[in-house]
């Protein structure tokens, strides 16, 4: 075991930091209060990701065959940490490089690869993920948005909800039901968002304006060639995708950065001498670092070519604990931060609330840990 970064890894992080420091606009910190899925940040990201791509920083972890630098999972994690620490200037395009690209390479037809990979690589393209539905949240496999084969097209009818980026996305990675088999009846369609019959409605939210949406599909026509994988293969494909995405956003890293900011504000105010404050700050730091090390243990599994497995749910839950603790710390000791006192802490707070909800609720992570890490007998269904 070695807990130090290699020189190359440290240099990679420094290079990313320097690039962001130099290339983000002067008012970036205030601007980053717009969430990654907001229209403002999404528009900004289109130009910014192109510059990242030109500098080899958009998908350095991709294999060389598809234009990447062939760097490993540690570099992918470093990239994610640095971007998230800066308020994710890639907007929704982090999804493209984390999992949509690799999934396209594995399951896409030649035509799909030829069409989408260059668009992703250009840093101009945005996807949205049509997964959750009003009655299918944690129980995703119960989804009902129906795709009916009609000659050489599918007709799609139904509704998605909580869809990030839907307002501005080019294409939806859409889960649809093609038969009644719970998991084997789900099929992926790649649907251009300007297809007639799609209506997008923004949902006002605590996490920032324009970040989540409802999407309605009213007899939307999708050519069969836009099916991704075989009919009924969706569950297998999204499980593969999730192995690329399970670690997801390195929220522990932003939480730690936010904690450091909060402490700096307390020091400036002369309040970091109080033991009550210092004890709580120490506690928060320990939770952030516990989450960090738990996440790093999963990255190591990817380096070793092992499945990330259920332990990734444990790392995710540790991250939720850290996020909550830091958000609570700010509310308790730096209340002014959430009332105009700190754009950075406000940005963190708005995103922090998502930690226990997005990409599988915290309780689902606990279920997975109970069954698959602790190997407890399953609950009756």
């Amino acid at each position: 075991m070695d807990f130090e970064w290699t020189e190359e890894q440290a240099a990679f992080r420094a290079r990313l930091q320097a690039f962001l420091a130099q290339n983000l606009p002067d008012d970036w910190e205030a601007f980053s209060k717009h969430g990654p899925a907001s229209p403002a940040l999404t528009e900004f990201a289109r130009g910014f990701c192109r510059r990242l791509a030109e500098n080899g920083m958009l998908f350095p972890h991709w294999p060389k065959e598809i234009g990447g630098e062939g760097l490993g999972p540690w570099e992918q994690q470093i990239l994610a940490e640095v971007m998230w620490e800066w308020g994710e200037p890639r907007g929704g395009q982090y999804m493209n490089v984390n999992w949509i690209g690799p999934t396209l390479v594995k399951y896409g037809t030649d035509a799909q690869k030829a069409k989408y990979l260059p668009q992703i690589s250009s840093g101009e393209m945005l996807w949205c993920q049509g997964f959750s539905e009003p009655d299918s949240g944690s129980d995703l496999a119960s989804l009902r948005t129906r795709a009916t084969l009609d000659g050489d097209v599918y007709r799609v009818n139904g509704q998605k909800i909580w869809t990030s980026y839907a307002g501005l996305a080019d294409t939806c990675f859409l889960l649809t039901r093609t038969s009644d088999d719970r998991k084997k009846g789900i099929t992926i369609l790649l649907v251009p968002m300007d297809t007639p019959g799609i209506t997008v409605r923004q949902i006002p939210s605590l996490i920032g304006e324009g970040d989540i949406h409802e999407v309605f599909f009213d007899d939307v026509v999708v050519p069969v060639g836009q099916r991704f994988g075989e009919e009924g293969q969706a569950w297998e494909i999204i499980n593969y995708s999730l192995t690329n995405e399970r670690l997801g956003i390195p929220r522990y890293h932003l939480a730690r950065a936010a904690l450091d900011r909060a402490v700096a504000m307390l020091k400036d105010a002369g309040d970091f001498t109080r033991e009550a404050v210092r004890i709580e700050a120490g506690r928060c730091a320990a939770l952030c670092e516990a989450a960090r090390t738990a996440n790093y243990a999963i990255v190591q599994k990817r380096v070793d070519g092992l499945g990330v497995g259920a332990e990734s749910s444990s790392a995710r839950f540790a991250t939720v604990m850290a996020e909550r603790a830091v958000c609570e710390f700010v509310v308790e000791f730096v209340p002014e931060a959430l009332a105009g006192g700190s754009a950075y802490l406000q940005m963190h707070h708005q995103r922090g609330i998502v930690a226990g909800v997005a990409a599988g609720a915290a309780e689902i992570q606990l279920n997975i840990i109970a069954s698959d890490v602790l190997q407890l007998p399953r609950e009756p269904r």
Partner: protein
Amino acid sequence: MHLSLNEDQTQILDFIDSLAKPFAGVPLHDTSFALTSDELDGALVENGFLDVAAMPELGAVTAALVVEKLARLPFAVEAAASALVRPLLDPDLPRPLCLVQEGQLRKPVRFLKPGATVVVVGNGKVRSFTATDDIIRGAGEEVLYAYPMAYLTGIPAETRAHDVAADTVLRAWRVALAAEAAGLLAAALQSVTNYVSERKQFGRPLATFQALRHRLAEAQVVTNGVYWLAMRAAGTADPADAAMAALHAQEAAKRVGYDYHQFLGAMGMTLEHPLHLWTYRLKALTSELGGRGEQALAAADALWG
């Protein structure tokens, strides 16, 4: 960054597994509050397992791995201080090693007995002496912790000064505490998951009830965190890492202690079930180095000044 075990580490842990096999279970009908074994202790010393930190190719992380592994046994072994603190002072100090803070003689001391080396840390100094009968007061049957414990009634006039900063020893002590706690937490969790997976009520295993599943899953999360923070603190020798590891360990001990016994129902109140061997050791570790608040303050000092 490389978090897999190397070949040496895998081998050492496997070797400990086979050596400790006879000690992996509680002897039948034994209802001791604290379980120890001179035989196990002797075998560990003889095979050099407590000296791995001093070997450059193995180092402190391997020592922490050894400590974590041994703490999972139902038998209490003084490994943590010997393996992680002793190398900083004098690798030949007689064992067991008992760590005490200056001015804290009111507290019971783990593993204290005649012949033990007592290391006193505080006021910027580190000194040691060999414990003798006249300054040890046995705690008799009163001890509610699952370690052998006794009181130190005084410190001899003559002590040996060690040329090492008190902060360095405190850092290593925190790593030792966290590594030992990581093993205790893991063993206690395993013991409870085994029980609730078998014990049936309302026609199904207790472990199928979500009220228990979620709390056990959260316990797994913090146990995993303690493990990794302990290993990192051993590897980096960073005072902030050590303080956070010890803090997280003491937080975790507090979090699980009552839950675990409660999940076992009345069986959790007996000495027949060995759970207390781990949880009541965790209770003892909870008070070390001043408890959670002190570790949190140490972390804040190290991180932010």
